């Protein structure tokens, strides 16, 4: 029966199936007490990384532009939503509604940032585009890390200098404390919500790929000039793709922020390294392959944690993975070699031989 359904849809079903199966497996392990504390702590970060990887794959694989500032959008989503949560956490809003609103706000703010940043960035191409996204990522992190926002009875106070220049009243309360960030965010995120958001992310990205808009975006990736000549609005579609990718990264940021009690805009959390780590997931999983990104994100996050000896070598492994994958997949010599001696060629040859006999 499965064969009758369109190949693409079947492919997507397999992806959803894998995620749901993984979720059920984790639930069973958890209820039978077979999940170590270490792994339990990793569950939400795993969903964060999966969402990040899928959303970056949308920019790198579908739009065909390298973004090195993905952590910046995650940072915007994290701080935007944590700010909202900090504003309303003393009110009587139920936790579920509060978190749902936080997710929407995080996605919206990150999406708007994606759009605003996309306007100058997407005029550039290739290396320049990559370096400018890196620049924007660093700017976002630095500016948020220098922001002081406080609240007292007379309203909100804002400063880029220090906490003193906020001039708050005696009942003042810091909300964003510069490099110290936002503290005491309620831990609203859990694995279930994370998995649901992963499924929604996959749904958005795969449906986008199969839509008219998605095909337009892919045609820009394959040949910009040809796409333009058949009347595709390059700027519009590029911005659309970039903003969607940014909004999804923002959602990952919301999950991230609501899984920690202290959120700081430090390079450790939202710096260049984070962007590269997500890029490694995308490259290892296969550029443009959504399922691959998910699997790569999970494997590369779990592997160094499970093999404790590897933890020190984690970034080194990422670096080697990046280089080796690129050389194997893109070097003309490697492609030639694979075509001559690869498994697929081998099987095809054997089939031809059998047919002959």
């Amino acid at each position, binding site marked *: 029966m499965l064969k009758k359904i369109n190949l693409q849809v079947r492919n997507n079903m397999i992806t959803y199936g894998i995620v749901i199966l993984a979720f059920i497996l984790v639930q069973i392990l958890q209820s039978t007490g077979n999940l170590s504390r270490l792994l339990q702590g990793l569950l939400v970060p795993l969903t964060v990384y999966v969402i990040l990887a899928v959303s970056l794959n949308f920019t790198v694989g579908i739009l065909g532009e390298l973004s090195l500032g993905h952590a910046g959008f995650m940072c915007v989503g994290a701080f935007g939503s944590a700010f909202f949560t900090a504003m309303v956490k003393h009110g009587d809003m139920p936790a579920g509604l509060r978190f749902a609103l936080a997710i929407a706000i995080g996605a919206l703010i990150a999406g708007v940032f994606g759009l605003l940043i996309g306007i100058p960035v997407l005029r550039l191409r290739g290396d320049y585009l*990559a370096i400018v996204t890196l620049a*924007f990522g660093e700017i976002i992190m*630095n500016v948020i890390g220098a922001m002081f926002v406080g609240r007292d009875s007379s309203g909100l106070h804002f400063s880029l*200098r220090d906490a003193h220049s906020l001039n708050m009243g005696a009942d003042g309360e810091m909300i964003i404390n510069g490099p110290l960030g936002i503290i005491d965010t309620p831990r609203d995120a859990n694995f279930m919500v994370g998995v649901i958001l992963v499924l929604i992310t996959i749904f958005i990205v795969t449906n986008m790929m199969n839509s008219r808009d998605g095909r337009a975006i892919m045609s820009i990736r394959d040949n910009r000039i040809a796409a333009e000549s058949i009347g595709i609005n390059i700027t519009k579609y590029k911005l659309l793709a970039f903003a969607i990718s940014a909004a999804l990264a923002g959602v990952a940021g919301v999950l991230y922020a609501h899984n920690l009690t202290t959120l700081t805009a430090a390079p450790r959390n939202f710096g260049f390294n984070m962007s590269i780590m997500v890029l490694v997931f995308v490259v290892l999983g296969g550029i443009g392959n959504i399922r691959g990104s998910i699997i790569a994100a999970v494997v590369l996050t779990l592997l160094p944690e499970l093999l404790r000896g590897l933890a020190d070598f984690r970034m080194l492994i990422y670096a080697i993975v*990046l280089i080796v994958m690129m050389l194997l997949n893109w*070097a003309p010599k490697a492609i030639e070699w694979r075509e001559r001696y690869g498994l697929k060629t081998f099987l095809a040859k054997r089939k031809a031989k059998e047919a002959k006999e």
Partner: protein
Amino acid sequence: MMNFLSFVTNGISLGSIYAIIALGYTMVYGIAKMLNFAHGDVIMVGGYISLLTATMAGFPPWLAIIAAMVGCTVLGITIERVAYRPLRNAASPLAVLITAIGVSFLLQNVALLLFGANARAYPAMVNMPNVRMGGLTITGITIITVVTCIIIMVVLTLFIKKSKSGQAMLAVSEDKGAAQLMGINVNKTIALTFAIGSGLAALAGVLLATAYPTLTPYTGAMPGIKAFVAAVFGGIGSIPGALLGGVLLGIIEILATAYISSQLADAIVFGVLIVVLVVKPTGLLGKKIQEKV
């Protein structure tokens, strides 16, 4: 006013280091048409080689600097041979960029495993008395940095204009295929470019580590990226552009740190890059290239 002048001299000093690093970027970008992301980390390797040869092997400073330059030249050629050359004709231009990011990470993390994350004190490689002009004190290292930078610029310009290898570089940057037809060994020319760029990076590493006398595995990353900003600012592919961009960027960074906020200085430097790329993508001294269909 005196403060302002001393900030400007500090800026020129920092900018001269950026300019030397930017040269490596600009030459490699001009000739191999790739952004060598690992260039900044070659600086760090140069710093460590000079540090270790000076402190552990007891080399005199000039020998330690030469050791660093030789080491980095070999490293640069090796990186080009192993990681970049196989991808030169890859279908996607992103392939070699991502590989370069991988190499950058590899260098950082190998250094992290070998030397640890703690900052190491860097000895004074060069001793030069401070110069007082009126109320303004110019440190010895500032003078050495600026003079080194100017000498490198002059020598490099002469090398490219007068020597046969330099002419070959120009030809390769203009048109790889045509250069090959004229009997120029493109692979060798690109390797030579990497060698020069990496040797200069080692020198920049020594100057950088002397000016801020510590060294960590991440020392090179940020100056590397900023030097690329400087190269783009001045116009990528142009040697005077690298000097101009580097010095301007150094001054902007120091003034921003002094008068606006040290937290936001990096953000301002990157803001400059974005403004330049959006307003004048070819940089201050860059050539305009028409895209052909």
